[in-house]
């Protein structure tokens, strides 16, 4: 039977042709389901009967994942063919129930058996689930547990089925006796207290294993690196008791000795750790030897040999690390022969230890450099004398002929349209490079796949001249069939409406099936945040010119809780909690309740988000909030509502338009009341705002390349019931990798505001003003102090902020290790009371150094900023600890 594929085809028999007209098509489903799935029925009333349409209908309906079978019945009537399509519902999981012994909760059983919402309850899955649950119960001490599972359909078979676990737990085993074997008096005393579970406690195998591991670790900690501890159990069904025996083999106390050469303390620590963790077994000894060899090679001992062996000594054992270092070699000179300068930068440097891996890397670098210049057959070898001392490293290059591209052509039956073309690297008149040709091939493959030719093949052809000085290069494109998208089947939806998925698809029925579009669709679906799994696959594996696709998704939880903890210089520590109800009405609408609190303030917010306003990809967000904050010199409470709509042109560019109405009350004023226009102690903000963002950063938390541009213009008008003012804030940042470890970040900010409706502009209400200084710059200052100050009621100088802000900063970040970076920065900036006061000679300059530790929530940042032009009496420097970059 298995060999059927190799068998010859045999003759067939009867006929299948049938051209009668279809009179009636019935989809035998509940009305709502039938309405949703009617689009997948391709058998048409009034059209001639078509076997292929029947097959396609079954394939499409089956691909929805909702049915175990789809039966198409055909019946000849007096006026034509009547077709009945009878889908058989799949037993999809609804609830999990426990019957029999209630030793486990249904929710826990569901988690243990890894049951996903709506998954098919097929016999094999039921068997797996019951096995998982039985294993878990046995692990909890029900050693005789037996579990079977069955699917119990609901009255409405299209509503799914309950999975029922039938549990016979048997008695829960308890620990009868615990003994310790193998360990002598002292060692026994050392580990006896670790034995778990205690007699009389339920027997949980994982606890016993953990106890054995703790015993081993404790013995290892006393120098018995080869100690072992395992647990054996014996179950007596008549008493439901388990006898536990901990087999402990402490072994001798082991120390590490070196012979032949000394090793550093840190290397000794590493080697001891390898031996300890590996239980001084053969592998661990080899690992330790390799570690020592590597350390010596890095110091220029090319011929180092290390042998690690265990020796018995009186009262213990010793692991001896015998080191034969050989001669120490350094790089005396680096010579490149056979290649015209300039040469690429090499890893081997004069005066540094001579290391084989660096020499190999240099050989590769030089070969690649020659290949880049068109020397296809270039060979580079390194010649280094044996022995030690300052050695001359010679790289001998045999470049061979230099090949230039004489002609380059792409031989294709269908040229790509203008927008799909990629610039190719290979060009006539330029050196011939294999790497470029390979990249060009890949670029063409991707472009044609995106253009609907998934089975395209691109073959390079290179014809060299006899002396290999020139080459005629071509890329031959064999397109294969052009594939367009047939039907798109959406599978796996529980609460989400189908249109929510369809509107995110970059692929469209009847359009080319491009690989890029497929990936984009997948990304957009993932960005919704509604699904835990997403896959887009072809319905049939055969290369048909029209491929139907199945978009299969698995919905995630609809109610989510998020907790946050953060820190900033002003707030020190803040915590937040957010509860969201997602996918309201199946339309990806979200309701959010958010609360944040710190020692300096609080914020409560209720928000509602509609991602598709009036059927367009435009976000609407409405929120009501109340916040309270204690700032330097004043405090305020603010209550308000806002409505915002965001249009995203692409993942980088977005425009938001907002209307805010908020009442603010300013209190605890320490700054003189003169600093605050009296009418602004309690004020209303009412007016529209607009924000534009272009975010091209590679990582929004810790960018290495890209840009960020933000512009925000906020207004409030007396005619709308608020104070009259206009406020703009603009920000530009750019990030560029200077080398593999070095990143340059530059940023500029400008804030401008003015009031209206008075004889002359005055300062904005205090909470609306711009402030500068602190961990976001300039960093030589305390928070808000880079700007005008005034003597407060407590006789301290307090910041008053102002209507204008300028800031510029540059920062160089050097990645010392994977997570640790060093930074040097310079910031300049200040705040002016009024725009008319702006004078660049008033700007404050600071410089400083910092450390960054990379975490998943952004870098933890420690900065030390030094003022370059401090005001008299001010401290000249400031430390900042916070999370996130300054820009």
């Amino acid at each position, binding site marked *: *039977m*298995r060999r*059927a594929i190799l068998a010859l085809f045999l003759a067939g*028999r009867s006929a299948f042709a049938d051209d009668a007209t279809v009179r009636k098509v019935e989809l035998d489903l509940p009305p709502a389901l039938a309405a949703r799935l009617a689009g997948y029925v391709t058998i048409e009333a009034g059209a001639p009967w078509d076997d292929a349409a029947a097959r396609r209908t079954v394939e499409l309906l089956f691909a929805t*994942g909702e049915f175990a*079978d789809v*039966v198409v019945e055909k019946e000849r*009537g007096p006026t034509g063919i009547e077709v009945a399509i009878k889908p058989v519902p799949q037993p999809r999981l609804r609830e999990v129930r426990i019957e029999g012994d209630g030793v486990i909760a249904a929710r826990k059983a569901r988690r243990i058996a890894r049951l996903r919402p709506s998954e098919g309850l097929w016999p094999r899955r039921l068997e797996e689930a019951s096995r998982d649950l039985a294993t878990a119960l046995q692990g909890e001490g029900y050693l005789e547990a037996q579990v079977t599972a069955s699917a119990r359909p609901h009255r409405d078979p299209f509503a799914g089925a309950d999975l029922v676990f039938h549990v016979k737990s048997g008695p829960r085993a308890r620990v009868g006796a615990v003994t310790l074997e193998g360990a002598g008096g002292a060692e026994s005393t050392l580990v006896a207290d670790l034995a778990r579970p205690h007699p009389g406690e339920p027997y949980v195998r994982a606890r016993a294993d953990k106890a054995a591991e703790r015993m081993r670790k404790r013995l290892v900690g006393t120098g018995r690196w080869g100690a072992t501890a395992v647990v054996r159990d014996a179950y007596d069904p008549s008493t439901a008791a388990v006898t536990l025996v901990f087999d402990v083999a402490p072994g001798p106390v082991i120390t590490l000795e070196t012979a032949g050469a000394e090793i550093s303390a840190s290397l000794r620590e590493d080697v001891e750790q390898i031996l300890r963790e590996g239980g001084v077994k053969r592998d661990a000894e080899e690992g330790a030897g390799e570690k020592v060899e590597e350390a010596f090679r890095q110091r220029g001992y090319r011929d180092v040999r290390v042998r690690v062996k265990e020796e018995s000594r009186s009262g213990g054992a010793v692991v001896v690390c015998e080191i034969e270092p050989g001669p120490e070699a350094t790089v005396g000179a680096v010579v490149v022969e056979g290649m015209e300068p300039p040469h690429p930068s090499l890893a081997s440097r004069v005066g540094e230890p001579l290391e084989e891996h660096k020499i190999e890397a240099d050989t590769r670098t030089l070969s690649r450099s020659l290949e880049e210049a068109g020397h296809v057959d270039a060979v580079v070898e390194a010649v280094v004398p044996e022995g030690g001392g300052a050695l001359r490293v010679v790289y001998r290059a045999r470049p061979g002929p230099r090949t230039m591209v004489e002609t380059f052509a792409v031989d294709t039956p269908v040229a790509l349209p203008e927008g799909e073309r990629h610039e190719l690297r290979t060009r006539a008149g330029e050196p011939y490079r294999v790497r470029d040709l390979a990249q060009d091939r890949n670029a063409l493959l991707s472009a044609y796949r995106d253009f609907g030719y998934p089975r395209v093949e691109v073959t390079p052809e290179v014809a060299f001249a006899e002396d290999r000085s020139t080459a005629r290069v071509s890329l031959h494109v064999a397109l294969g069939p052009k594939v367009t998208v047939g039907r798109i089947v959406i599978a796996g939806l529980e609460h989400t409406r189908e249109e929510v998925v369809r509107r995110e698809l970059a692929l469209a029925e009847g359009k080319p099936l491009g690989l890029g579009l497929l990936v984009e669709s997948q990304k957009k679906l993932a960005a919704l945040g509604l699904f835990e799994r997403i896959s887009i696959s072809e319905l049939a594996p055969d290369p048909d010119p029209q491929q139907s696709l199945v978009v299969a998704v698995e919905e995630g939880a609809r109610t989510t809780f998020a907790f946050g903890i953060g820190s900033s210089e002003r707030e020190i520590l803040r915590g937040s909690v957010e509860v969201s109800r997602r996918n309201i009405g199946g339309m990806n609408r979200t309701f959010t309740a958010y609360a944040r609190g710190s020692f300096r303030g609080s914020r409560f917010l209720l928000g509602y988000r509609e991602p598709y306003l009036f059927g367009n990809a435009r976000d609407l967000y409405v929120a009501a909030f109340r916040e309270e904050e204690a700032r330097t010199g004043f405090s305020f409470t603010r209550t308000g509502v806002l409505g915002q709509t965001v249009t995203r042109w692409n993942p980088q560019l977005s425009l938001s338009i907002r209307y805010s109405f908020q009442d603010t009350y300013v209190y605890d004023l320490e700054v003189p009341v003169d600093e605050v226009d009296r009418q602004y102690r309690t004020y209303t903000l009412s007016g529209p705002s607009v924000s534009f963002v272009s975010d091209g950063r590679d990582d929004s938390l810790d960018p290495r390349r890209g840009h960020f541009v933000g512009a925000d213009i906020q207004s409030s008008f007396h005619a709308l019931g608020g104070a009259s003012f206009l406020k703009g804030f603009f920000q530009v940042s750019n990030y560029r990798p200077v080398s593999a470890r070095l990143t340059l970040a530059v940023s500029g900010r400008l804030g401008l505001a003015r009031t209206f409706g008075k004889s002359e502009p005055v300062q904005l209400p205090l909470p609306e003003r711009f402030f500068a200084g602190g961990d976001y710059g300039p960093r030589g200052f305390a928070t808000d102090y880079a700007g005008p100050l005034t003597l407060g009621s407590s006789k301290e100088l307090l910041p008053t902020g102002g209507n204008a802000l300028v800031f510029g900063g540059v920062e160089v970040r050097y990645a010392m290790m994977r997570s640790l970076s060093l930074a040097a920065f310079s910031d300049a900036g200040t705040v002016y009371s009024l725009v008319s006061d702006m004078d660049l000679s008033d700007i404050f300059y600071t410089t400083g150094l910092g450390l960054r530790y990379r975490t998943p929530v952004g870098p933890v940042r420690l900065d030390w900023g030094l003022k370059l032009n401090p005001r008299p009496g001010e401290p000249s420097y400031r430390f900042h600890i916070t999370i996130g970059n300054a820009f």
Partner: protein
Amino acid sequence: MRSRRGVLALLASVLVAPRPARSAEVVERVLASVDGRPVLLSETKAVEAVRGLERGVAIDALIDEMLMYREASRLPGAAPPPEEEEKSLAELRARAPRIEETVRLSDIRTLLRRQMVILRYVEIRFRPQVRIADETVREAYATAYAGQPDAPRFENAEAALREDLVRRDLDARIEAWVRELRAGAEIRYSP
């Protein structure tokens, strides 16, 4: 009166008389599924007709073929050139001239294409692994012709014996491959 009674009787006989039974024919359904992809009744019927297999055997053959084809079609250049497909179709028509009366041409082409892709994969993946030692061929010769006075000379029988051993080795490898594919797949048979 009599005539009216006669008409009523005729009407009654027409209404009461049993009508010829109209039976619905199942033309398509899902007989099994492999990792969520259906094995259809029409496909199975095509395999039954083209290869002369029973229903149950045809379903399993289709399942195996789907699994093998899924892996084989990932091979770069897996699709056979059109001329090879046409040649294969012509050979089939020569062997079974009336096959298109039974099976749709598109189904025949699909079956042929799948088979060619799988065979090509088998050639590339398994054929190079087959090594038949000279000793093995000698053993096979000894087993096949032991005690036969008219046995051919070893040199004359060697090629055929070697070919047979290669074929058996390939078959064993394909069987193992299919077992592995089946073990990793979720296969469901419809009741």
